[in-house]
């Protein structure tokens, strides 16, 4: 007759096995961690072709024949850095664009210091973005360029297009908050209570580390515990460790946000929700979304906990353009750029969308407008 086996017995055996495996894993991990690791990020070559104050303009030359005549400017958020779009070879939005034959420009906002505390949204939109757009227009001898905004950079791009519609051919917004009157994301709940004025008085600029702490607190169980348990479980896997470190490098590379810009963004957008109501004033001018009549592609993540779909999807209904499209991807805020699935989907979709609108000369566009060829569509993929 077999001996009765109880859970405690099995648990002890399992513990023994696990501890042996853990020992082996950590022995192997020594080799991995002490050996050479390739954890560089943003390795795609570029030229800094323009600079104004701390703001640099990076230019990436396409690797194949140009498929789109109009250059594309990517405006990243002031929170974290644009290096996320070029995390590693094979997982790089930048490289995907270059492989598709796009002339790619990207704004590097740099690291604001105390002297930047008085820079407002007006300075970022009407000075920095505008100067950069003018530079690209002049360099390529084009009246208009394509503009793509990411998160807060998307909000800036929307404001810019509304204020300078004559300089933009097509607008792409990705995970861009424009409607802040929602309680779906914790950020939207918490920021309602923040005294931004006092925060800026105390800190000058909004410290990146405090912002990062806030992001970690959105889901401490996953971001502060489970993530590192996962790391320990794979600590002997060189590729995993390299990718993990790359992500850590990016996540905790957090420049401070200029104080006045932070204050205005919190008060005018998160607390008063002025942008979507066409009531926001930037540089003395009212931002009227109805003035955005260029084609608009609006992409966001269904599981985005920072900028939930509710914060993004209203934009296409509020702009004056008849050619708009919403795409909701089954992913989160960062996954949209770094997940393998989205890597395959995001850039080809954008390039195809741009290509369809690239050769349309102004007079044909008129016909298109009158015929209303492109109607508002809502797709989910």
């Amino acid at each position, binding site marked *: 007759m077999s001996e009765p086996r109880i*859970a405690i017995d*099995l648990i*002890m055996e399992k513990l023994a096995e696990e501890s*042996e495996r853990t020992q082996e894993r950590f022995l192997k991990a020594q080799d991995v961690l002490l050996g050479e690791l390739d954890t560089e990020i943003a390795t795609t070559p570029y030229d800094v072709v323009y600079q104004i104050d701390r703001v640099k303009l990076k230019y990436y030359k396409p690797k194949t024949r140009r498929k789109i005549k109009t250059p594309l400017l990517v405006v990243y958020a002031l929170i974290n850095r644009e290096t996320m779009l070029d995390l590693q070879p094979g997982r790089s939005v930048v490289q995907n664009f270059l492989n598709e034959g796009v002339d790619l420009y990207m704004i590097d906002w740099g690291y604001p210091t105390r002297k930047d505390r008085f820079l407002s949204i007006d300075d970022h939109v009407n000075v920095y973005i505008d100067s950069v757009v003018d530079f690209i227009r002049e360099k390529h001898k084009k009246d208009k360029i394509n503009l793509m905004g990411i998160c807060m950079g998307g909000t800036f791009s929307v404001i810019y297009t509304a204020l300078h519609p004559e300089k933009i051919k097509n607008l792409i917004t990705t995970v861009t908050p424009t409607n802040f009157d929602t309680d779906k994301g914790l950020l939207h*709940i918490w920021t309602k*209570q*923040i005294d931004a004025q006092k925060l800026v008085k105390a800190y000058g600029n909004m410290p990146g580390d405090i912002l990062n702490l806030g992001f970690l607190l959105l*889901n401490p169980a996953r971001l502060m515990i489970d993530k590192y348990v996962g790391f320990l479980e794979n600590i002997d896997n060189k590729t995993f460790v390299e990718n993990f470190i790359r992500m850590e490098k990016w996540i905790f590379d957090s420049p401070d946000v200029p104080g006045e810009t932070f204050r205005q963004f919190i008060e005018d957008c998160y607390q008063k929700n002025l942008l979507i109501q066409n009531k926001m004033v930037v540089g003395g001018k009212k931002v009227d979304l109805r003035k955005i009549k260029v084609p608009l592609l609006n992409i966001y993540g269904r599981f985005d906990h920072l900028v939930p779909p509710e914060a993004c999807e209203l934009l296409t209904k509020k702009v004056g353009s008849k050619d708009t499209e919403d795409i909701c991807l089954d992913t989160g805020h960062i996954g949209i750029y770094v997940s393998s699935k989205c890597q395959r989907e995001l850039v080809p979709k954008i390039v195809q969308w741009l290509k369809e609108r690239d050769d349309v000369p102004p007079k044909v566009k008129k016909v298109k407008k009158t015929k209303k060829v492109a109607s508002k569509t809502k797709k989910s993929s």
Partner: protein
Amino acid sequence: MSSSDQDRKSNDVFTEWFKSGFDFWTSMGKAWPDFTKIFESTLPEEHPFEFLKSWQSMMKMSEGMMSALSSSGTFSSAFSGLSSLPEIVLKMAQKGWDGYFYLYRQWLEKSMSGTRPVQAYVFEKLDENTFKAWTEIYEKEFKQILKMPKIGLAREYQERLADLADKFSVFQATLAEFLYTLYLPVEKSIQVVQQNMGELAKSGELGDDFKKIYKMWIKTLEGHYMTLFKSPEYTKVLKRLLDAVEDYKIAREEVLMDMLQALPVPTNRDIDDVYKEIHELKKQVRELSRKVK
């Protein structure tokens, strides 16, 4: 003595040991209600003996495990497996018991000073009383001293120093409250997982996979955090903390700037004035450049 005699003897010793241990903790559990009467005034009114639920669930889980362990042949079965285990497992077991008893000691100490309800995913009753009590004492006793009118040539400096002491105290108290609030989901999720494990052990479905238990815990913890973070109570605590941090930082810098006045170095206030001026000048230059073009 033959090896089978030795096995039987060690089996008996462990059975007795477990049995006496179980009896001790069971009687302790039964003794609790009387014991708590002593501390009645410190316990929350609406949930006077809520912490006992955790105790009871722990005892139920223990009961299931003890009865399984004390059954005939169990120890020989367990130890036949154990004999092949490396030394590290024994060390781990020892550490585990140490941790177990440490947790119990912590829990007992805490339960004597009153505790909160153990209802999963509910945070409407944050244990604010402790922090409120401290704040009240501070406001009534200490703050009054700091707020006493200052006189003389250095009165303004003294005022700023007293303000710093005040803001620092408030910041410390608020930080403690915030950290305690963040700890609540950890405590609650452990209790929930404990209860689940007890039920699984009772039905013989506990299994041997620690990863499953970890996953159960992390999922529960995540859920508890989500519930907490969406609650107005948490938002209030967060706002209080942010206000306190900002007030403290502003007060600290005011004092530092007083000190720096004696040194030949510019303060943040001086530098900010210059930065603001440069910012305004740059704007004007840009505007003029546009007009010239």
